């Protein structure tokens, strides 16, 4: 009987308290029918107080993962622990997890205050304390005095804040955010992004944030997990994800990138079209591959002799085929012998502006060009 009390504390807790995995997903799997894997063998550890972003296109399994953590979906296989407590098969209402829904899911028949107080009521918090905590929560989301309103009378952004207050007032062990910004307009989204991050850091609450927007993932999160077809394509810091994508899918999905077909010449160089460029092939020695370069990592200079360019940089002669003015940047499409490179130049820093048809030289550092095996991550 006492065996149920046995709890395996992770060893890491003693050795490295800062990186202790607070939320642990181990081999989480969701299978529908005989063989459709919505989520396939997911392993993620989130340290205490950190914000994990689950990023991916729709249908990649990120929301399924979130709902499994919340307990709204049964897991087919695997184990979820919070702070060492196995919650894999706990009913959702006993998990003590705050969840902010994409459509906010505020109770339409209750006032804002009643909405926020609901979770406290379920926990048997007495009325006086509940009232104070509700007001405190509403102040936190900058809606003091809005308690008597009905959700219907509030704007989308305000409803969003109420949903956040409602999820946080119960002081949950874990906060889950399901695409919380997708129903807001662009300007409000920027504000809410900062606000949510600020509150999360102030409360030091471990959070999982689901989004299909890479800007949200990169700017808000401590850790980003990129998901693709039910699998975790890459887990790392925003910088890892952006600078060192694990595969072509991540490179292509996170930020914009030029993907060019290439041929591996050796461990340290590839051939694109007729030219050979030095770069790290990451262990590939031969065969066809793909090379990826971010548009803004390519610098443009007026056409000059190739020999003047330092051997440390890659360079290609090209011709401007299209100029697109976007405001903060100008985008040039450049034809380099059969392949088109898209490049971006900040309008403020641009020393020179180019015309369509103009010849120029594209330069980039070898480490800015990533090489992926053909078909990786797709």
């Amino acid at each position, binding site marked *: 009987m006492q065996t149920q009390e046995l709890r395996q504390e992770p060893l890491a807790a003693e050795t490295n308290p800062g990186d202790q995995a607070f939320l642990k997903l181990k081999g989480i799997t969701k299978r529908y029918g005989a063989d459709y894997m919505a989520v396939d063998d997911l392993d993620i550890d989130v340290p205490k107080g950190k914000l994990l972003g689950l990023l991916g296109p729709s249908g990649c399994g990120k929301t399924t993962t979130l709902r499994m953590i919340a307990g709204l979906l049964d897991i*087919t*296989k*695997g*184990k979820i622990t919070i702070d060492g407590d*196995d919650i*894999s*098969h706990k009913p959702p209402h006993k998990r003590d997890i705050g969840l902010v829904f994409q459509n906010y899911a505020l109770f339409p028949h209750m006032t804002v205050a009643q909405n926020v107080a609901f979770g406290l009521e379920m926990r048997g918090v007495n009325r006086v304390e509940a009232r104070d905590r509700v007001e405190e929560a509403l102040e936190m989301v900058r809606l003091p005095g809005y308690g008597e309103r009905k959700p219907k009378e509030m704007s989308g952004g305000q409803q969003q804040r109420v949903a956040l207050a409602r999820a946080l007032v119960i002081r949950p062990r874990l906060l889950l955010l399901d695409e919380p910004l997708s129903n807001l307009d662009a300007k409000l989204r920027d504000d809410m992004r900062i606000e949510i991050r600020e509150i999360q850091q102030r409360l030091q609450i471990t959070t999982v944030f689901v989004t299909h927007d890479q800007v949200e993932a990169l700017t808000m999160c401590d850790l980003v997990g990129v998901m693709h077809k039910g699998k975790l394509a890459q887990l790392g810091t925003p910088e890892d994800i952006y600078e060192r994508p694990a595969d072509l899918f991540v490179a292509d999905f996170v930020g914009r990138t030029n993907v060019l077909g290439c041929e591996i010449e050796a461990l340290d160089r590839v051939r694109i079209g007729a030219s050979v460029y030095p770069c790290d092939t990451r262990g590939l020695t031969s065969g066809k591959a793909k090379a990826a370069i971010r548009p803004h990592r390519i610098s443009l200079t007026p056409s000059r002799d190739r020999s003047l360019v330092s051997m440390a940089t890659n360079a290609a002669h090209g011709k401007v085929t299209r100029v697109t003015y976007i405001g903060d940047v100008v985008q040039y499409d450049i034809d380099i012998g059969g392949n088109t490179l898209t490049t971006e130049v900040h309008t403020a820093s641009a020393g020179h502006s180019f015309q369509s048809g103009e010849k120029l030289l594209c330069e980039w550092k070898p480490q800015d060009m990533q090489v992926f095996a053909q078909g990786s991550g797709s």
Partner: protein
Amino acid sequence: MAAITSSVPLADAPQTRRKFPFLLIALLLPMAIINFIAFVLPVVRLGMISFIESRSGGVLTNNYTLENYVSFFTDSFSFELVANSLTLGFGVTLITLCCAYPIALFLHRVSPKWRNMLFVITVSPLLVSSVVRTYGWMVILGDQGVVNGILMSSGIIDSPLRLTNNTLGVFIGMVEVLIPYMALSLIAGFGRLENVYEEAAASLGANRWTRFRRVILPLTAPGIALGCLLCFVLSISSFITPKLLGGGRVFLLATEIYDQAVIQLEWPTAAAISVIVLIIFGLALAVYSRVVKRFD
């Protein structure tokens, strides 16, 4: 010890949840029982009895025969019934459409403030028993009724006009009973109608009549089709109004079913006529779905 063995494999075991769905069955069972007793069973029984040898006095034999249908199709009175019912169905539908269309168009165009109130007025007759409304028509159209009273006291006529106990009375009563149904169907189908289309037509040189014929009418056609189906079906099967306003002198399929079943107690005959009515229904539905397909 048992606790250890039982708690360990849970995590990896695929979920074996699908038990016998007691809850689901408990939720659906009462409704299913009602439906079976008062719908499925009666309809099946009706079909069966229509093939049973006819004996008057509510006696049901076990002899199956086609005789009920044969005698229906060989009796000239049956054809009169079908003809009367179809005439009533088509005629009432057409007149109801002409009365309800202006109402629907008016409701579509009037300011929202008035629209809600007029909408309630339009559908409110549905809440009044058709017996009461038919009685109202008997008062208005009867020999000593309102219409005859006014006409006679003003000296226009000497003897009362026959407005009830004949087909005319049934027509008037049926149209009034069915207007709300037709109006509701039309209003539902008016969603696609917007002023801009008419304005566009006007800018291209269409006059009032052409705009109505070429723009408004085609846009509202799905609602018209639905309303016509509903009214046709309801007038074919209506019984209260023809019985009361027809005064026993208007013979229709529906009144015949009632007479055969309740007065003559010739149940197999009544059942056979019911099946004929259902077949007419099926045909009307088939025509409707073909018409509707042309709009999409």
